């Protein structure tokens, strides 16, 4: 875990999603993707501000392509929200913090 962000791999993906006590936002990214890099500071801020309410996780599609394939990722960044072990929301493309927060709002508990 770096900056409060969970690093997902082929090995820990299913267990992490299943056992997460909060909704979990997974960012599918790769080193060579400019817009993915642009999302990093935003995701770090959200991880800090929403700690305990939503978990922020990252999955490198270069290293763990099997997971990306399983969820039909064809463009990165793609961000997904998993809740109670299931994928509830799929967002394609980079976006600003206000827009991202609005899109995931329904998964963030209002009371902590």
């Amino acid at each position: 875990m770096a900056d409060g962000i969970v690093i997902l791999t082929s090995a820990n993906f299913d267990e992490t999603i299943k056992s997460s006590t909060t909704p979990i936002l997974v960012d599918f990214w790769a080193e060579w993707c400019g817009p993915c890099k642009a999302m990093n500071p935003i995701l770090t801020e959200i991880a800090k501000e929403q700690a305990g309410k939503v978990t922020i996780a990252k999955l490198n599609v270069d290293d763990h392509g099997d997971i990306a394939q399983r969820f039909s990722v064809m463009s990165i960044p793609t961000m997904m929200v998993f809740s109670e072990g299931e994928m509830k929301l799929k967002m394609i493309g980079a976006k600003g913090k206000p827009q991202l927060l609005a899109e995931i709002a329904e998964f963030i508990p209002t009371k902590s």
Partner: protein
Amino acid sequence: MSATEMTHQKVIIIGSGPAGLTAAIYTARANLAPLVIEGEPSSTSDQPGGQLMLTTEVENFPGFPEGVMGPDLMMKFRDQAARFNTTFITEKVTKVDFSQRPFTVWVRDTKYTAESIIVSTGAQSIMLGLENESRFYGHGLSTCATCDGFFFRGQEIVVVGGGDSAIEEATFLTKFASKVTIVHRRDSLRASKIMQDRARNNPKIEFKWNSQVTEIIGTNKLEGIGLVDTVTGESSKMSVTGLFVAIGHRPNTDLFKNILDMEANGYLQTRPGSSYTNIDGVFACGDVQDHTYRQAITAAGSGCMAAIDCERWLEAQH
């Protein structure tokens, strides 16, 4: 940094491509402590770092004999600006008022004022403008070859366009795709000679001349495209699983309509040989005012001009 502490600046730079960040480096080194409102991440529109964030290898930026990845180059620009006391806001300007000084810039509800403004909002890619286009974005249709090429390994894909960016994307995509067809509405390319030769000598690249994309076909993801021959008017279909669009750019000047003087095509007008706009104290640099050269290096050069013009103008006010 709270909004209230940051309300008044000597200079606000709107946009953060090569022009805006060069202007930031120069104004920061002139002790003007610039505020850069760098934009919001996006995969389809303008964004922090500018158009180079969606490109691959940049081979013509001096100082990088081995080439450099567009996003890496822009990170270096940003780090250099940050080193000299530049403040960044990763949001989009939503409104400006240049009718009186200090000038006012809004980011949603937050208001910032400044003695001077440097506009470097750049340009963004034009999409095809087809009815169902947005539905296929991320499902076979892409605006970013570097981001998405990887997912088209062994597939047949199409790149639309005939300029340098189209050829660069097509060449890059041959790393992954089994075949790349360049669809262009004319019978010759606009791209530079070296890029053209590279494409023509690449066995995985084919050309489809005088053709325009009229339709995107598919249920859940892209399965093919409809084409029309621009000479004969004949329609045809082609099956492809990936479609990359690089047909040109438009300036990001919506914010400045009826405020700053523009050319008929929407690009900002600057006084020849300078970065002065029609409003005293508002300067423009980079692609937002350049539809001729549109290179990272010319954008950076004009960003330097804007910073120097701005610094001298500020000095003259006292």
